[in-house]
């Protein structure tokens, strides 16, 4: 099969999986879910690493790669830490009960 068609297949299946996975979320978890999935969208760091690591000789390529890694890292580190901080507050409360 054309590798591109395979990727499209994966894309469609993953979208459906996403809908099934998160159809019923209690409202107290709306923020953590949003912020947690926001951290996952930092997966573009994989593309950024490849852009920076395999930038070749062009200056523009190096700049774009570096900026991409910086932005994606902010998203990944910031996203996971903020989500964790938020969820820890929920946990304390349950333990306190």
């Amino acid at each position, binding site marked *: 099969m054309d590798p*591109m068609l395979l*990727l499209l297949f*994966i*894309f469609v299946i*993953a*979208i459906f*999986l*996403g809908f099934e*996975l*998160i159809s*019923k*979320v209690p*409202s*107290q*978890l*709306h*923020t*953590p*879910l*949003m*912020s947690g*999935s*926001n*951290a*996952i969208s*930092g*997966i573009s*760091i*994989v*593309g*950024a*690493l490849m852009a920076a*690591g*395999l*930038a070749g000789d*062009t200056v523009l*390529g190096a700049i*774009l*790669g*570096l*900026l*991409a*890694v*910086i932005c994606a*890292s*902010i*998203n*990944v*580190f*910031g996203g*996971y*830490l*903020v*989500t*964790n*901080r*938020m*969820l820890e507050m*929920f946990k304390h409360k349950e333990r*306190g009960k």
Partner: protein
Amino acid sequence: MELRETIITLSYIASAVLFILGLKMLSKPTTAVRGNMISAVGMLIAIVATLLYQGMSYHLIILGMVIGGLVGSIAALRVPMTSMPEFVALFNGTGGLASMLVGWAEYNKLFGHYEADAVPLVTVIATYLAILIGAVTFTGSMVAYAKLAERISGKPVLFKMQQVVNAAIMAIVLICGAVFIINPDTSLALVLFYVAIAVSLVLGVLVTIPIGGADMPVVISLLNSYSGLAACAAGFVIQNTVLIVSGSLVGASGIILTSIMCKAMNRSLANVLFSGFGSAEGAESTGAMQGEVKALSPEDAYYVLEAARSVVFVPGYGMAVAQAQHACRELGELLEQNGAEVKYAVHPVAGRMPGHMNVLLAEANVPYDQLVEMDDINPIIDTVDVAVVIGANDVVNPAAREDPKSPIAGMPIINVDYARTCFVLKRSMRSGFAGVENPLFFKENTRMIFGDAKATLTALISQFKGD
């Protein structure tokens, strides 16, 4: 396939599985913390696997990750809980920008070789989509950040010919896209590519400024979804499965949240995005309110609360502004000690992001079982002695139920006006973000307690303690 590539691919599968498990666990209260950690492990595996690629040079990577990691971590650990919405928007924007840069870098690398390398059409289209969606996500999130952080006005910004300008921009985007996709190797395509980046950045601003502060929960969810789709497009550009899978998951979860938020306001997504809801025009449609406002001092309010057997707090964005969540919890505890049944009723779109009030109440250590959702409190609201509205307005506005001409008609609300007594803690008589007058303030059983919500609650607390 070479051993190295097999290991990388297998690691990507593992990290995709961890993301799926993480998201699933994130949607249940008991497993949420572990879910987030599992998804972080998935991210770590994906990063390490990518570093294994042959021929990688690491100096730019290390520099970038140190800078980005430090900025992100410090911001995440320092941000106060009340500023959470704007920081989620900020992080979301950097993710979009990263996807845009990945698309751009890839084009920069392949420029001049598209034909020779027989780059598939899907990749070319995806490159264009990655910079388009990435750029809109970036500037859109920045505007959302500025609105949430109140760097700019939260009011919808509308100008003449706005739709025409947007349509013109869309046309430019499509034309540039068509030329680019037909042959990305030409110098014309290169120029149009830059035009498309600039125009998409402007588009992100233009589609977000007409949306009012009260609609921000919808916008943030939608932008979240965009950032996932941008990552997905970047995944098609570099033909990487883990990007496609995780991007799609985020895209889907963002769309689900968006639709939950829209349903909670009984409005369509199109209405939220394009109507400029809450602008001056919208507010004129309601006539002046009739009736008498009955103000109450905290001292008098104390006597009512002291005698109350059941009290429901209804928080809104004003509670976040006044930082009143701790005082609110303290008063709740005192009322419980006084023998009253205390609950906190949270409207799905109260605040500026999905679940905003839940986060604040959690920060103040409000017990889980005291939180009730709108659909659970409304059937029993007429048995409640006192409903205390703290900084909420539109989500308790009975006009949504009674006045079919109201701009918020049909929006489900918490029916606090059905409670025996309703206290409204409010700074002044100004209308809410939607710019709609609130007949609740004029109802027979409503008492307004004017002033800063935190100060009022603190006054009530000292009354209780003084006894």
